[in-house]
């Protein structure tokens, strides 16, 4: 769910007018290409970096073996299902991010939930589609399903990564940089502003301290959510105004879940709002969807 499909393929990007017609050379140009929207490996590289920093510094993972199991399962399902459905070999960046997302965000003393969650995530991408696009962020769907179906065995990462400033700075800097490079900063900004404003509304309703209502967004788990999850291009609507509206609506839905005292409010908010927004987006722009379908199958 953390930017599971890094972004559209170069061909699709070109079709959207964001591709470069002339390729420049030299170290600066190479760096520019690396940190560009066309580099589908950029988000997985940064996520891996964040994961390693978090694990080495604070042991954020339940265990390396569980995370590897989640990644391995996602990769295997992606390989098998892509071969069976499209008869081609997939680019595995998307599956890798799905697996690593599950590995970071899921907490369970058991091993099987990691494999099962990854399997559900990848399978949902193939099984739940409309007009060639999947409408649920795969790992968001899978984690929400596990929270509903197996609460005895799983929880989500809801803790702080540490008290020192620099790990948070790393996440903020990387997150802001990536969202800016992939043109998703407005989504993150909208969500943050909405969350803080709605925290004020919740304070008025509950009477609880404002800082208590704001507290969740100050934790690095939330930073992963706002930088990498709600900005997932494959499961966000196309127009910029639409993306801003959806980010706001996710925050509103989250407030509803929070007022109902649901500890997994951000996950369920995205699970509910995301597909509705996608369905409307697909319904309103069938030709765009067809183009995306063609680009994906190419």
């Amino acid at each position, binding site marked *: 769910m953390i930017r599971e499909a890094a972004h559209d393929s170069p061909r699709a990007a070109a079709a959207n007018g964001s591709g470069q017609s002339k390729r420049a050379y030299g170290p600066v140009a190479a760096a520019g290409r690396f940190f560009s929207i066309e580099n589908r490996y950029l988000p997985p590289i940064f996520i891996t970096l964040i994961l390693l920093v978090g694990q080495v510094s*604070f042991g954020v993972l339940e265990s390396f073996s569980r995370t590897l199991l989640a990644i391995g399962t996602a990769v295997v399902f992606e390989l098998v299902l892509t071969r069976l459905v499209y008869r081609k070999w997939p680019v595995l960046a998307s599956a890798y991010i799905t697996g690593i997302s599950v590995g970071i965000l899921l907490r369970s003393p058991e*091993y099987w939930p990691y494999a099962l969650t990854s399997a559900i995530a990848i399978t949902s991408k193939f099984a739940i589609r409309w007009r060639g696009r999947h409408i649920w962020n795969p790992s968001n769907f899978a984690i929400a399903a596990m929270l509903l179906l197996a609460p005895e065995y799983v929880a989500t990462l809801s*803790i702080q990564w540490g008290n020192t400033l620099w790990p948070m700075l790393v996440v903020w800097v990387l997150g802001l940089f990536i969202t800016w490079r992939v043109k998703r900063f407005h989504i993150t900004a909208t969500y943050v502003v909405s969350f803080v404003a709605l925290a004020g509304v919740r304070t008025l309703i509950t009477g609880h301290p404002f800082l208590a209502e704001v*507290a969740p967004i100050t934790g690095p788990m939330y930073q992963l959510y706002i930088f990498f999850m709600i900005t997932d291009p494959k499961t966000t609507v196309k127009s910029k105004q639409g993306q801003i509206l959806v980010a706001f609506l996710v925050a509103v839905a989250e407030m509803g879940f929070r007022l109902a005292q649901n500890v997994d409010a951000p996950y369920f908010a995205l699970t509910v709002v995301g597909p509705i927004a996608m369905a409307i987006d697909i319904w309103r722009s069938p030709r765009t969807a067809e183009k995306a379908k063609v680009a994906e199958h190419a």
Partner: protein
Amino acid sequence: MRIALTVLLIGLLATPLVIKRIAAHNKPSVTPAGALSRYGFRFQEVSKAAGIDFHHTSPHLDGKLQHIMPQVASMGAAVSIVDFDRDGWLDIYVTNGGEGSRNALYRNQHDGTFRDVAGEVGLADVNEPGTGASMGAVWGDYDNDGYEDVLLYKWGRPELFHNDGGKHFTRVTEQAGLPAWVNANSAVWFDYDGDGKLDLFIGGYYPEDVDLWHLKSTKIMPESFEYAQNGGRKYLFHNLGDGHFEEVSEKLGIRSRRWTLAAVAADLRGTGHPDLFVANDYGVSELYLNEGGHFREAGRETGIGYAPKSGMSASVGDVFNDGRFGVYVSNISEEGILVQGNNLWMPKSGSTAANPHYENLATSMGVELGGWSFGAQFGDLNNDGFEDLYLTNGNVSLDRNHNYWYDYSKVAGGNKAIISDAANWPPLEGRSLAGYQQKKVFLNDGSGQFKEVAQLVGVTDVYDGRSVVLADLWNRGVLDAVVANQNGPLLVYRNTVSPDNHWIEFALEGSASNRSAIGAQVRVFFNGQQQLQEVSGGSGFCAQNDRTLHFGLGKAAVDRVEVRWPSGKTQTLTAPAIDERHKMVEP
């Protein structure tokens, strides 16, 4: 293809339901009456019949904490076992917390009942306003006069009481040189330097400059839910032998400020020196390796100090009957919210005394989930030859229909500027937080698996359990259980064990070693196996088992017994009589 994919997805989504169904199907079902024949034991709660009517009360802290008082003032119910008058029958010391409340010392009447004599001997009025609230007590004969003295640790002024011949206790806190105020939830007696005199570890929880009844600031809470290092300091008091103790923690390598809730000392590596395992709330556990009188914190390098959890209890047991200790640490698990899982740290293959490594086998052995876990103790409950595990749990039981989890998780995930200030914590408003939880009795099947049987063997209470001890209260060759509950009654679970199984017990008394024999190891060889136990100066959560070591034997006789005293002397008994207690004095 789409249909096939949909079927696959539905199948995957149905998998948790299938797993739950299988787990429910495999769950043992037996009536309590059938537990004796099925599992070889059953418990019956007998506190009233035993003359025990003790109800714990929590302290009322500074009004600035009023909105979260039940969550903050949620500890202090503790129990420890001692034969304070050396009459050969075990007595029970219980702590209380409310201002002006009285602790109780239940003297064994030898007829199945107990009588509270705390007032008579000077151990009752220890919670006077201004002195803090009791959190626990550990017993040890620090002056080797043959009678067990007691260290009472509190959120407040720690107190050392000298046992005057089993008749009275004299407060010797100032003479001993103990600090004026420590907010402690753990203490253990152990002889870390092997000089024959018991030393003392006290682990701070809140910082020692915080008086919870008179707060200067509300910024007293942990700075993180899992990485907090703004807790109380640790103390290691070296026994100078003249009634004085010298504080040597810094000098000997113990410098942590984590939020310690439990500690246990044991020779985990077979070096002859007791190591110190410290379980911390809001963070990782710590393992202080004793390198001949100096300590080196090796949590990370040994594997136990990596994943931060909420350590509540630390106890030591030889669960495989292979002569090696594992350490059980209880944590927090709540369905769908926080699944930390408890830890059972077992030495990895290839682990050596010089290079110890541990792995967490709690999941594979079936002892990981215990709710909001607190005290846990190992002991062979059915005398089948394998150490079982008794775990109590439950945090705050108030309104059954409303819980505080959501609001708790809100601040728990926040930045330290928010979580560390109690003023930012949402009010509890009468809600429960992990309340009314069923206890866990994990039965060791001897093949690496534990089966949870609490409800089936008669452990059915749902109080907010804190401290548990296992002891042969009535000299019957079985381990009974005593549980102290926060804002609840002291429960005494009398054990009935199948007479088919044999047992053997060892009551040790040191001479060159400390007289309490704390740190002595007994290795019983039977049925082609060996089981290792060590006399402990405190284990679990705010608890101390009896110093007498109890071994179940199943149907087997004992081949031999090896005793290693803290002084290093060893003794071997060949084919000792079974079904009896052996009193041994260090030669």
